[in-house]
């Protein structure tokens, strides 16, 4: 078979990104903010779960003490039956906020991943980073460095517009 290409080593496939450098940097920042906030809320969630299933306590703000009838300002109270009536349940709030924040975190993962055109496994690593306590901070640091290195090494790879 005749090789249509001229002799010599064919060019290795050049690295290309899925967006401009500005887009990548904005995605990187979005990812960083969410990696830290989700990571922090994950730690709060761990505390909440330990209090709830280990000690049967919820954190309440406001409301009335169900036993004594006195005003409850801020603090832990029995979860079941509820030790506080009518107050804001901060434990459940942490649970809900973390749940939705994780969705935003996944969106930020997806945005960075698709702009960088990384392999699929990389998206899985980013997503799992938000599930294991403290891991999102480490993965974020590594990913950040990696993006910077790739941007510096492939100045032609980003789209210009």
């Amino acid at each position, binding site marked *: 078979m005749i090789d249509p290409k001229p002799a010599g080593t064919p060019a290795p*496939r050049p690295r290309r990104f899925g967006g401009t450098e500005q887009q990548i940097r904005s995605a990187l920042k979005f990812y960083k903010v969410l990696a830290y906030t989700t990571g922090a809320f994950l730690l709060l969630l761990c505390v909440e779960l330990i209090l709830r299933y280990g000690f049967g306590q919820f954190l309440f703000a406001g409301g009335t003490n169900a036993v004594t009838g006195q005003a409850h300002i801020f603090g832990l109270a029995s979860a079941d039956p509820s030790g506080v009536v009518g107050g804001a349940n901060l434990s*459940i709030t942490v649970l809900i906020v973390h749940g939705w924040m994780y969705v935003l975190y996944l969106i930020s993962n997806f945005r960075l991943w698709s702009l960088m055109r990384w392999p699929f496994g990389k998206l899985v690593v980013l997503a799992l980073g938000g599930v294991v306590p403290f891991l999102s901070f480490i993965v974020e640091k590594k990913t950040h460095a990696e993006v910077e290195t790739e941007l510096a090494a492939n100045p032609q790879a980003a789209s210009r517009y």
Partner: protein
Amino acid sequence: MVLKTALKPRWIAGLLFALLVSTVFVLLSQWQFGRSTEQEKAPDSALESPRPLSEVLKPGSFFPSSVADQMVTLSGHYDPSRQILVKDRLLDGRSGFWVVTAFAVDGAPRLAGAQSTQTTWIPVARGWIAEAGQAPRAPQGQISLTGRLVPSEAPTVTQDLPQASYANLSVAELINIWDVSSYQGFVGASEEKSAGQDVGAADDSALKPLRLKAAPPEQGVNWLNIFYAVEWVVFAGFALFIWWRLVKDDYQRQLEAEEDAAVFARRPSSSQNTPDDHRSSE
């Protein structure tokens, strides 16, 4: 074409995997939807231990929901002439009638007002009968009664009812028919004793016991579970979207490779490994 890329064995396998993942996510969503309406609370167990009626409810005053379906004890006597039937009542799936008799409550406070009667009454659903003609006469004499205190039903207008039979057990309606003052609820009898003898409904007689149960507490929808259900559906869509992204990216890479090859072929003298501008041909 993108379709050609999508039909590569590895992307077909990828699609099957994405479909599997999204199926699991949809099932998780259904599970959360199911949980959102699940019954979490059982009826209050305090309703099951009988309390004297006089402690629980005052005639002529508000009927608090906390004592609805409370088991109560009371004593007094029936008036056999004040008896009606309530139609379309089910017992073990069979349609029949409730037998409701006026019961004069001993020691009940007299209602205020010129029309109030000397004694205060309460309708008692004594039992269930299959045929309208089977209604037995109410037992005579002093009776101590145990039963469930149930709020009055709302009256409904129904035409062509048989003699002495009604569509609902409405205390407001019964007050006018019997011309007596009454508590604003009724009792579903579970035990009637006269001088130590059981005189109530029995399974082996025409009048069968009602065995009313306390209604389960009202249950709201758990919005947390609803939101989780929505979240899982979104994730299911996302799994398929990611598959599509991967296919598109593969197709894009193929186009770029062809483009690079073309650029490389046009410049045979070029020794550069990287084309200086991959968009020069555009």
